[in-house]
């Protein structure tokens, strides 16, 4: 029976796991309790493995990293954010970050699945058989996953700041980590994201120099602008010029812009061939 599942079926199941994580979190918080670390991490991990299976089948079908349309870009971003959460977030002693991660992954994966137009066509052979270009694209998307997790910790920082400023400390606000802990992890995520994106752009630029026609100006400007904005935010944060809620808002707004740019960047590529039938 499992062998009859398509890649989209696997990705639907994964999205439902993330949704269950989100709903359990909401239920726990509404009852005045904290979502269980064990349950939340188990659900996220199960969703992650199932999503990995779906992406693997899609990758096998398309003969490379599945980054050929907006649907795949959203799925890969959600998967990257979950990967990072499972690597660093679990040690962050906050099941509420798990709840936020489940919410983000459910949103990204369900949105991509509920808009069929995003997956009707895809570009084939987008990397031209060049593994370095594939590496560049996968790394760039992975950095978006890091920025997604950063947006979550930034949102938590804003909520913690709000609760302390407005003296509303009860309920689920009490489950949020401290301001300093959230700030520290946010700075680390920002540094990681910028580093990964820098490597990705460095690899990409080497091929772009050889063939400047391979990437159109719109994609180039938008991608470099996002990288520059994140790098500037990191620089300002390290110099103490961008702190507290302004820093958090910047991280959230930049991620929204980065996410919104995925579609236009993808559609700015040359015309796409017909749909795949996986």
């Amino acid at each position, binding site marked *: 029976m499992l062998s009859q599942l398509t890649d989209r079926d696997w990705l639907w199941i994964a999205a439902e796991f993330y949704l269950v994580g989100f709903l359990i979190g909401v239920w726990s918080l509404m009852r*005045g309790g904290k979502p269980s670390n064990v349950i939340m991490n188990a659900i996220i991990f199960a969703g992650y493995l199932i999503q990995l299976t779906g992406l693997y089948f899609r990758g096998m079908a398309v003969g490379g990293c599945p980054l050929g349309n907006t649907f795949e870009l959203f799925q890969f971003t959600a998967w990257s954010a979950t990967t990072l959460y499972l690597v660093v977030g679990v040690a962050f002693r906050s099941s509420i970050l798990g709840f936020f991660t489940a919410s983000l992954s459910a949103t990204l994966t369900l949105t991509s699945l509920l808009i069929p137009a995003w997956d009707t066509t895809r570009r084939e052979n987008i990397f031209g058989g060049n593994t370095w270009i594939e590496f560049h694209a996968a790394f760039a998307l992975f950095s978006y996953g890091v920025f997604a997790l950063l947006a979550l910790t930034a949102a938590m920082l804003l909520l*913690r700041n709000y*609760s*302390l*400023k407005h*003296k509303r*400390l*009860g309920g689920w606000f009490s489950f*949020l*980590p*401290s*301001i*300093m*802990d959230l*700030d520290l992890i946010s700075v680390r995520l920002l540094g990681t994201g910028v580093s990964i994106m820098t490597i990705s752009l460095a690899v990409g630029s080497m091929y772009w120099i050889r063939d400047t026609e391979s990437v159109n100006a719109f994609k180039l400007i938008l991608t470099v602008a996002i990288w520059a904005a994140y790098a500037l935010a990191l620089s300002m*944060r390290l110099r*103490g010029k961008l*702190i*507290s*809620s*302004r*820093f958090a808002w910047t991280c959230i707004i930049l991620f929204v812009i980065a996410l919104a740019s995925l579609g236009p960047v993808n559609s700015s590529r040359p015309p796409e061939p017909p749909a795949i039938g996986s």
Partner: protein
Amino acid sequence: MSASEEQRAGLFVLGATHHSAPLEVREKLSVSETANEQLHTKLSNLGTLREFSILNTCNRIEFYGVAETEETIHQIQRLFCEQQGFGEDEFEKIRLSVRDFDAVQHLLSVASGLDSQLIGETEIFGQIKDAYAQAQRRQSTGPVLNRVFQKAFHAAKHVRTNTAITSGQVSVANVAVDLANSIFGDLKDTRILLLGAGEIGEKTARAFQSRGAGSITVASRHLERAMNLASTLDATALPFELRDRHLADFDIIVCSTAAPGSIISVSAVKEALKSRSARPLFLIDLAVPRDIDFQVGDLPNTYLYNLDDLAAIAGENRSARESEIAKCQQIITERALTLWRQAETRLRR
């Protein structure tokens, strides 16, 4: 009293607590370590007292035991009053005296913090454990008390885990420390400036110290008082006039002076924030009239709490605990019933 009642061995609690005995009375009833030893020896010589344990805290003196007759309990009361030089008639007015199931239920309530002055406090649990351990060392416990105390510990843990009776701090000083945890996480690297050498400031500083806070500096308008308090707290003293210049060096500022107006202005905090990079600043104003300009709270990365704010949080936490009492009592009654049935069987042996 019938002859059968007179002869029946029973579990009892005899004592006095904060519920009926005011502080000045409890002071007279408080048993010193030496007096405790003497009392223990005297009680051990009562042939009809099978088992006993003495719980002696600042809020209660209680004798838990298994007595063969009612007269035994009267003898304990007599011996205790004699030793403390306290009138038996007076003691009877404030006396707590319960038997059997009620005694079990009482122990479970006390161990769970339900009978405490500060509902839900957990210190009493440790005090009961100590009292029981002491009784065990002196071999004054037996099959009934061993069972009852051990099960009482389990029940208290169950109540604490499954209800919100211990959640949230209920004292102003501890609320302030909890808030600092919400801002800084671990407090070991935090630097605290105590402005004012009064009692409330000292209490708050001690609460910070008990939760592992880093260094403490004391500044007072009277340098000598600052130095005295600093030496008590193992802290350092700072001349009061230098407070603004050094504001940036501290993460937590606790103000409790009797100054007529504000001693920390918005401009001073703004200036301090410039050299603090991203590290937040937590200001606690325990003074009336207030020591800190209230507009400081509007500055970014700065958190200002005054006495009313902290008292309101403590009050909310207290209400939350009180709303859990019925749930706790239900658990305790269920457990006490089961435990009493087991104890009754042992009493008949």
